[in-house]
């Protein structure tokens, strides 16, 4: 039997991921609302980026790139029974100009619920250049 509460929570996770990936390229202040204070990014070939200020700085840096198209596909979402911990993983692509194959890879995001709202706690990704 489908647990409707958990299915609703899974949809919320998907909506936040969209805000964090697509909207963050233009609306960083909005995206930052969905980060835990001790959020951590784990880039594929670099040291972890820890804390909301460092992550925001990285988002601003990334937003400087001229992006033609960005998107992704959710492969799996799991939400705990009490809906306090969740993860999502999937694939993504970033195209920098028309005809350019750009970058693609996979991501793993971990969310925790704080005061009734899902927030990003950890985010790790792989990167394959075409």
């Amino acid at each position, binding site marked *: 039997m489908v647990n409707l509460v958990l299915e609703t929570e899974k949809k919320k996770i998907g909506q936040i991921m969209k805000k964090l990936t697509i909207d963050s390229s233009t609306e960083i202040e909005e995206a930052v609302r969905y980060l835990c204070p001790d959020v951590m990014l*784990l880039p594929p070939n670099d040291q972890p980026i820890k804390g909301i200020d460092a992550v925001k700085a990285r988002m601003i840096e990334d937003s400087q790139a001229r992006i033609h198209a960005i998107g992704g596909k959710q492969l799996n979402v799991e939400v*705990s029974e*009490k809906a306090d911990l969740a993860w999502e993983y999937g694939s993504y692509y970033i195209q920098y100009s028309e005809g350019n194959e750009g970058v693609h890879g996979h991501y793993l995001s971990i969310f925790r619920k704080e005061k009734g709202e899902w927030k990003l*706690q950890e985010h790790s990704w792989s990167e394959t250049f075409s």
Partner: protein
Amino acid sequence: MKVDVEAEKRKIRELNIKLLVDHNRDVDDELSYFVDNAILMPPNAPPIVGVKAIRPVIEGMIKNKINLGTPKGPDWIVVSESGDLAYDFGKYSVKTQRPDGLVTEKGYYISLYKKIDGQWKFAGQSWSNLNL
């Protein structure tokens, strides 16, 4: 029923260490602790999805005599209030003997765990590589 989160963390730590140690010994036993749709996400390659696809990866690690040293377990572990999902974060260092000498790779990892029928299972891992 209230979950003893600290006790669950200890179980996750034991599993994390067991998986690192046992993959030098018994592939079938190692894979018995994986969920069927477990995923491995290397930093610069496509993901490896499902136990069938992961098996040759572990066999390759044994064949190539990858040395993981003495596993210390993750730096931290988070367990859900309901004790059914968990993840950990840690550092790794592996040594591989290659034709051109001993290569050491270092990085960080995040592992996923899911409790199935009362037992914690490994659901996936994403890791970085600082050597590139």
